[in-house]
């Protein structure tokens, strides 16, 4: 279980999160919606442990542990996964090398035996096939020269390989056409399980047609201002974020 309590965070000296409360139980999919500047991406980076995001108050308890006290790699090893809005290009590091290093780091942390080259390739073939990714994409440097859709598929592949307990999907729909969105959403849905929680961060309702959440929360001005079931997303689609004091047209 993940419990976010009264979370306050600053970026560059500016208060962005101003008391976020959220509880996510195993198997649940929560969506966070909100206008630009509400603090959606800040929340995802704070949970993943990025430098430069200063938590000034509140707590995040992750299966009984203090998540905020952990280094980013410890959080990942404990099962936190952030699917990046803008996956980073890393020239010179092959996608396979990256994935193998990551999975073995996590297995080591869990006290499991590291995979050898053959075992790893077998696992990778299985997962890539399901996502319709080519071997060529695996040989290339991480995200270098990937289209927007390929980058998001690569994020989904990493999630499938690393099998997190808690996945945060930051604006996974941004930059995707509808076909790419469907493929990514299918990949994500295939990973839904009673043990795995997800936090889906999005500006638009569209993604939630494909990844249907159990709960929807509205984040505005650094706080969760409304929570509800999946119907709340439809309501937001119709009325926009005006009800929460935000006029996006302005």
């Amino acid at each position: 279980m993940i419990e976010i309590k009264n979370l306050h965070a600053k970026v560059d000296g500016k208060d962005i999160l101003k008391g976020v409360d959220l509880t996510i139980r195993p198997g649940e999919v929560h969506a966070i919606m909100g206008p630009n500047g509400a603090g959606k991406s800040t929340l995802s980076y704070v949970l993943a442990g990025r430098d430069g995001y200063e938590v000034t108050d509140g707590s995040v308890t992750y299966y009984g542990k203090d998540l905020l006290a952990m280094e980013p790699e410890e959080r990942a090893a404990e099962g936190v996964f952030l699917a990046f809005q803008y996956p980073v290009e890393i020239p010179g590091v092959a996608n396979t090398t990256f994935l193998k290093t990551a999975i073995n780091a996590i297995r080591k942390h869990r006290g499991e035996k590291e995979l050898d080259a053959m075992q790893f390739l077998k696992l990778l073939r299985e997962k890539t096939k399901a996502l319709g990714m080519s071997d060529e994409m695996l040989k290339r440097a991480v995200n270098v020269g990937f289209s927007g859709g390929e980058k998001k598929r690569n994020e989904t592949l990493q999630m499938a390989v690393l099998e997190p307990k808690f996945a945060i999907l930051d604006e996974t729909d941004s930059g995707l056409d509808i076909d790419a969105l469907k493929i990514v959403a299918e990949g994500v849905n295939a990973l839904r399980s009673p043990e795995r929680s997800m936090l889906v961060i999005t500006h638009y309702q569209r993604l939630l047609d494909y990844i249907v959440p159990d709960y929807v929360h509205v984040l505005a001005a650094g706080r969760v201002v409304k929570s509800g079931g999946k119907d709340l997303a439809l309501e937001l689609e119709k009325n926009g974020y005006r009800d929460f004091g935000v006029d996006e047209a302005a």
Partner: protein
Amino acid sequence: MTTSLFSTRGADPTTAPAFLAPLEGRDAALDGSALPVVADLRARGRARFAAVGLPTVKNEAWRYTNLRELAKQTIGPVGDSAATPVDRLPTVRRDGAGPRLVFVDGRFRADLSTIQGLPTGVLLTDFASACRDHADLVAAHLGRLASADDRPLVALNSADLTDGVVLRVGAGVAVADPIELVYVTVGREGVTASSHPRALIVLETGARAVLVEHHISQGGAAVLSNHVAEITIGEGATLHHCKVQRENDATFHLSHIAASVATNGVYDNFILTLGARLSRNEVVSALDGRDARTHVSGGYMVRGHQHADISTIIDHAQPNGTSREVYKGVIDDHGRAAFQGKIIVRPHAQKTDGHQLNRALLLSDSAEIDAKPELQIFADDVKCSHGCTVGELDDDALFYLRARGIDKETARGLLIGAFLADVLDEIAETTVRDAFQGCIAGWLEEQR
């Protein structure tokens, strides 16, 4: 061919006696003394170095590399290295059984060397044997490309000219296997033992060879290794010359390579610098024939309080020459690096194509690099470019890797390895590339 990297301004003659003292009274006993060319060069080197001493930072060519610490050392002769056991000899060969000459503290060790497996037409021998058996070859090439007048450290090398390697590849002969030279420094307690090996390398018309140099230390003693190589590339000949320096961090490693490339010849040089307290690699490649090519490249990895200097001169003296120069460096802790890259295009050298790139990665706030590209172009129909970048590790990439469970040090290692990966592609020989890749991996492993 006189390309002066050095003038007598900015040198300190008071430093000279300490370096010349270990040579006193050894003349008659030295190998090759019977050859006038050797005796002359020693005398000239001694006189020249006595007059100038070590260069100082007041000299433009030495502005970024300060030999002050070297001047403070108590310089002594090398010990009796003839019987020093050597634990391990590096090689790029997987079978470990190729032609290889081994030098301990600059002295040739026949017992550790092998010249098997060379085709006919190849002479690979030590300096003393060459003076005895191939006096004409030595007379024709010694001191021809590296001038003791121009450079104090060449003068010092000449003053103590005792040992080294002579390699001649005959016309049309291609040596497929890498020829390896292993320089092991052992040194002595209490003094900084100085050695001054010389290499004379001659590729005759159409010859081809791959030469790999390993420079390592056995133990932690401080030494001064002061190398000079004179390399003659004949018409249409190709030499791939690769060097890896992994000496201990008390060592002063100085090296001057002077190459002259004839028509259609190729001189290809790659230097990987990992070791030494202070190192300076000077590479002067002169395209003295039409359509000649040279390719000088390398990687330098500096940490602790190490200092690494790469100073190159590409001298386009004839038309249609091509030069390509790519260096990449990684500097951590209080490390310092200096890169000086000069490209000269002489008035006659039309249609020259010259390209230079130096990229450095600074891993700490106290790491430093000085970079000075310098183009001197006197012809009007040429293509010449240079580029220089200094950057840091990409924080976004580092976070991305860590967010996937990869610990910080491993993530840094991946990114540093990635930064250096493409410079290794400059090495044409796969076996050498793989071996050098292994040296870099070892460096990264120690970094953790």
